[in-house]
């Protein structure tokens, strides 16, 4: 019989200590929308399940140094409902608004979506494109890393035993900035992304792109940060020529597999198409933001 303990720690340090004291498998129970499915199928049999949703610092959405501090246990609906955040980071909202269904979004969290480490996770590409930094608490104290360094392969993270992400920092937004996340799915909702693109860019006063970050989801074993794709936009007015180069760079960077959700050929092609469309959307938002 599977023996499972369920604890509700009040601080991140207490959570970390509980994990360290547990010889068997410990799982963080954030939204639970992935973990519950894995537990039901028997894929994951944890000895300890930690509900971290009562930890104060994991539930904040607050302005910090002109940017945002977002707790790792904030669920997608809470994020969508925070108009100030949504105005600053509509691309991250695009992603949060596509996770599962409204029911799933009422539970799914940024921390969980990142650490479940599905290559097709919908919030991850926009977080990478935004330059989000993950704040981690562990047995050796606190540390910070860019979010793109967290996923280490399908279902695997770079975190060590006892470490958990407590929050994310989104940097202050420069003027004339915009971000977007687009994904391809066969249905309009409810599907796992076949291809996902998160893109953030900043223009100068003349409409020339000075900064860009492009991230691809579902086309490799983890979400990718694609500097070559960003380079195609930087220094340009994001015109048709630049967009074509962007699309080509995105397709070139994609290294997908054939699986039940899409073929290699399809994903490579659509990565380019969506990169171009995401750039167009981010550009429109950047031009609307003064």
């Amino acid at each position: 019989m599977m023996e499972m303990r369920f604890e509700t720690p009040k601080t991140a340090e207490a959570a970390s200590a509980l994990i360290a004291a547990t010889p068997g498998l410990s799982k963080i129970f954030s939204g639970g929308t992935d973990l519950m499915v894995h537990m039901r199928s028997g894929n994951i049999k944890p000895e300890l399940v930690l509900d971290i949703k009562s930890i104060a610092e994991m539930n904040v959405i607050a302005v910090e140094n002109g940017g945002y501090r977002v707790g790792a246990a904030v669920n997608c609906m809470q994020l969508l409902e925070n108009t100030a955040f949504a105005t600053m980071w509509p691309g991250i909202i695009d992603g949060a608004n596509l996770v599962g269904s409204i029911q799933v979004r009422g539970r799914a969290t940024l921390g969980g979506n990142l650490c479940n480490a599905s290559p097709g996770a919908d919030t991850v590409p926009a977080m990478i494109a935004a330059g989000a930094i993950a704040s981690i608490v562990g047995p050796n104290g606190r540390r910070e890393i860019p979010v793109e360094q967290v996923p280490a392969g399908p279902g695997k993270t770079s975190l060590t035993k006892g470490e958990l992400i407590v929050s994310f920092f989104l940097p202050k937004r420069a003027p004339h900035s915009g971000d977007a996340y687009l994904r391809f799915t066969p249905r309009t909702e409810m599907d796992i992304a076949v291809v996902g693109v998160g893109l953030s860019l900043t223009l100068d006063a003349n409409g020339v792109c000075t900064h860009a970050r492009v991230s691809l989801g579902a086309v490799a074993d983890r979400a990718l940060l694609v500097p070559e794709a960003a380079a195609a936009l930087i220094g340009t007015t994001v015109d048709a020529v630049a967009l074509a180069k962007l699309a080509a760079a995105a397709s070139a960077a994609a290294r997908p597999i054939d699986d039940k959700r899409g073929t290699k050929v399809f994903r490579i092609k659509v990565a380019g198409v969506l990169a171009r469309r995401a750039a167009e959307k981010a550009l429109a938002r950047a031009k609307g933001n003064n």
Partner: protein
Amino acid sequence: MLTNTKDIQQVMKVVGTSPVRPDGVPKVTGQAQYGADYSLPGMLWAKVLRSPHAHARILSVDTSKALALSGVKSIILGSDFPEHPFDYVGPERVAQNYWHMTRNIMAREKALFEGHAIAAVAATTAAIAAEAVSLIDVKYEVLPHCIDVEDAMLPDAPLLFEDMITRGVEPAPSKPSNISKRLEFSTGDIAAGFASADEVVEMSFKTAAVHQGYIEPHSCLARYGADGQCELWSASQGHFVVRAYTAKLVGMEIGNLLVHPAEIGGGFGGKTVVYVEPMAVLLSRKTGLPVKIMMGREDVFKSTGPTSGSSMTVKIGVKKDGTIVAAEGLFKFQAGAFPGSPVMNATMCAFAPYIIPNVKSVGFDVVSNRPKSAAYRAPGSPISAFAVESVLDILAKKIGMDPLKLRLKNAVKAGSPTAWGPKHSHDGYAETIQVLLDHPGYQKPLGKNQGRGVASGFWFNGGGESTASVHINEDGTVVIATGSMDVGGSRASMALMAAETLGVPYESVRSTVADTASIGYNHVTGGSRVTYATGIAVVEACNKVIEDLRLRASLMWDTDIKNVVWSDGYAKPVDPSVGNFEPLSLKAIAGKRAVTGGPIGYEASTNAGGQAPGFSTQFVDVEVDPETGHVKILQFVAAQDVGRAIHRDYCAGQIVGGVVQGIGWALNEEYIYDSKGRLSNAGFLDYRIPVASDLPMIEAVLVEVPNPSHPFGVKGVGEANIVPPMAAIANAIENAIGRRMTELPMSPPRVLAAIDAG
């Protein structure tokens, strides 16, 4: 909604309205009890061990560790069920073979598909039962498997049954194969027919297996008593059929099994068979306790019948003026692990809407290592229609004729021939085409990357055995009971027909579904038969009641019965000369029943014939994203001849529901298998049925060409609507992007590949 009524003489008072259904409030408040909602004290939970292999010999099954687990009460294997002789029984189109059926319930010699039940455990909790399942040790000899129908037909294909010799071939083959049966319907001279054609198109098509996708998994609760009497609560499309199958599979007399009709959460044909009921009954017999089984969603996809995948070739020849002169079809259908695909239906329905003098339609029923196929809404017809209606579209374009007009030119009507013998019995097809030609949406201009496609479809519809009873309560309210499971609102339709016949308000009629001990035999709720056949039984029972009400009134008035008429819900003197009598209501007559003869109630049974087929014609507008292959539905109009709409909203609901299933079938639904023959997408995440945001409002057009064989002119409505959508969408895609899709589903990677290939 638009309607097109033709020659309706009577003025209906309640038939044709849309009142609230009797089971409505229980369903919107969560009180209605479905198969998984029943519990009994002391109940055990059962879980099933299923084969992880697509094809394997079962060498041994060791249940000792599982039995030793505290809380486990019984474990059953295939050998615990009685054996049956190998024999196909019943009419050919719906023949059953219990030697196969018992093995489908639980494997014996071999596991024939991933998900094939091997053993079932009953324990005090579901968790203990599940743990016990994991402790059962099965030794398999894994065998090579085949999935695709063409692969299963190859000479060196792994054989599911080493002694399967193809039926329907003369002389019989000397070697076994996976081809269970060949059948053929021919008329005229096919070679001469094609020789006389001005244009001939031949094309091959493939479709994947799709599941009915009902949201409710199979569930039941069984209580077997020490006296050999068993009660079963089961969600099914026919509790009498459940009773018959379960009793035979478990080895008990039908009269000892009482099946209660639970509410059913969708069936579409997939719940006209049994999976969990024999297991629950047998476990209850062995343990002496009630046993509950609920299938998980994964098991539903892996272990219950989807409909067949297919490989088809269709060839049609037409004259320049659009007359179809010859049609040939080859239809190879996957039956799953046991014979019985709907290929016979498919070969018959394929060309049925058209007057064609020369037809040859050949079908193959082929087994392969996937779950045994089960009926899915007009079983077989949507599949062959995908091929036929696509080829007609190509021909229409070749001769420069509007595709609806091509169909109209060749449309069958009453007296037209069929390829399988009898003449068509009813009009109605042409009317469904005409109403679309007249529809403003058919002329709506199309934009870039947009296209419009049409298609038609035919389904036999059913008649068959039904029984209904009608009783008048002391207060004049009416209770009607049938044995027809209510899937789509038939309790309301029965009440409407009873109310109309008796001349009373709908609100005074209570409409119920009775258990197998409380009403006479009713065949399944399927085949679009219930409003027709059970409706006939209800009306007959009401007519018997009316005769008795006339008699009671005559006694109350002390006059001859011929002086009493029943009119608008009252007994009335036939004319004033009879006497100065106030009309008598149901309540007035019922109030005096004790002195006029006792309780007032009658039962009526029918084995209804004279049913009319279903015809549906549809058009759809799509928009294709040329860079991703994504197809969006812009407009969908579906016309169907319903004979007479008893409940307008529920008729329209059937049409819209069938169309949306067709949209899913066309665009995204398919069974995806890995190289080991295991299902990769056994859940609603990756088996993609349409969601609300995928669709616009679908428009249903009710055409009414009444069927004179039914008191209200009813024609079955449930099924014909799912036959056209896949071809209609393929035709619309072709119109949008100039590419012909010949494989279902027409998912984005396939559409994009077709765009890029051009």
